[in-house]
């Protein structure tokens, strides 16, 4: 009883986000991991109801989990609801992390280069093709 009580007290909120009733498996400054005696769909519904009026929340359905991401300025970054087959579901709430922000920015900056490099290659190839065509056409005219 004490364990359940302690779990429910400490597990009720993390970084301002309400948590479903469950047993805390791991807790650090950056994340909390719970085992919740509910199905994946029940927990997903719990969070959809909880966050229905909130802005900048994105839901992603991945093979192994449903990933709820905050694009706003909340202290938490994501909620991972793992797709377990059993009676219990693992839920992990992660703190907002700079590594994600920097990582995604670096990736997108590189992506801008990639887009323009592909365009550059296309232009270079078409430029060469056209110059050759014109060189071939010129003697004919003469």
């Amino acid at each position: 009883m004490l364990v359940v009580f302690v779990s429910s007290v400490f597990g009720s909120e993390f970084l301002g986000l309400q948590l479903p009733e469950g047993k805390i498996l791991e807790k650090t400054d950056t994340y909390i991991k719970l085992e919740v005696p509910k199905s994946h769909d029940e927990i997903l519904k719990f969070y959809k109801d909880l966050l229905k009026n909130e802005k900048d929340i994105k839901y992603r359905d991945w093979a192994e989990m449903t990933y709820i991401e905050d694009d706003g300025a909340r202290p938490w970054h994501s909620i991972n609801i793992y797709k377990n087959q059993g009676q219990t579901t693992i839920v992990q709430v992660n703190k907002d992390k700079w590594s994600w922000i920097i990582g995604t920015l670096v990736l997108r900056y590189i992506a801008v280069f990639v887009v323009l490099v592909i365009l550059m290659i296309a232009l270079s190839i078409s430029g060469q093709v056209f110059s050759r065509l014109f060189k071939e056409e010129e003697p004919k005219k003469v």
Partner: protein
Amino acid sequence: MTYNEILDLLRGTLETTGIWHFQWNVIVMWLIAFFFLYLAVVKKYEPLLLLPIGFGMFLVNFPKVPLMGWTEEGHGELLRIFYHYGLEWEVIPCVIFLGLGAMTDFGPLISNPKSLILGAGAQLGVFITFTGTVLAGFTLKEAASVGIIGGADGPTTIYLTQHLAPQLLGANALAAYSYMAMVPLIQPPIIKLLTTEQERRIKMKQLRPVSKREKIIFPIVCAGIIALLVPSVMPLMGMFMLGNFMRESGVVGRLSDTAQNALMNIVTIFLGVSVGATMTAENFLSHKPLFIFGLGMIDFMVCTAGGVITAKVMNLFLKEKINPIIGAAGVSAVPMAARVCQNLALKYDKTNYLLMHAMGPNLAGVIGSAAAAGMFIAMFN
């Protein structure tokens, strides 16, 4: 008529005036509006946009004016209608891109495709400012919309901001156009700081002539590649390339002429006044616009530095060196940034004409900032 009736009548009449509902904060907004009108009229800084923006801002900051609200029947008032159909529906920035496409000669870019790299390098500030904006307490979407200011592309800034953080539209648009107008002041010190005099004197080989066929094919190839890689930005780039195709094909002179003149002028009026109308005292007077102006300045500086540094890095690998000054033109701001590069190069060598060389990265900057905007849209969709 009794005394009370007269008093009631007077009071009723007074209540319909703006004086009765006057609040001090509108005076602050008038001053801000006058400042931008001053920049447009006296200093001639981006007058085509700062003038309607400033006047729109002035008009909506009077109590009880039926301009940006909703009627009792639920219809929008005049400027609300412009804003709703023009900006909320994201129509105007795309139509402006159509006109810009019809005005643009991509010859310098086609003849020197390497300049596309400079356009990408100059997006550095967009991503660095994003980080700073998040640190300042903005949401990720707001940070993306502030970051794109450094791309120095007004319609792209407006398009992205409307898409991700419409509450910042006025401040972002103002910052973008103000700093674009100040490119001649912002860029030269950064270029000088990052280059040696010897580098600034580098003369570049004359660009090869570009055939009509290449110019016709360019918008098709460019639209196809961007549609495949960054589809989210195609409303902008698709219109841009359509406008350019109309121009280069030479068979729809009337349409091309309309797109680059009459249509462009009409939508510019609606764009400016709608953006200005979003800046009511209750929306604008907070710490955020101040941050946006501060971060926007840093953004422009880092983007300029990004372009110059990219040019210097490219020179490590290139046999025919490029003048790193033209890297600064990668921030877009067509054609002012290219002119700044030309003027700076002429200071060090009276025979070094860089304008056409700088136009390449300048146009690449337009594509680069649109690509960066597309990356942000994709990030949040």
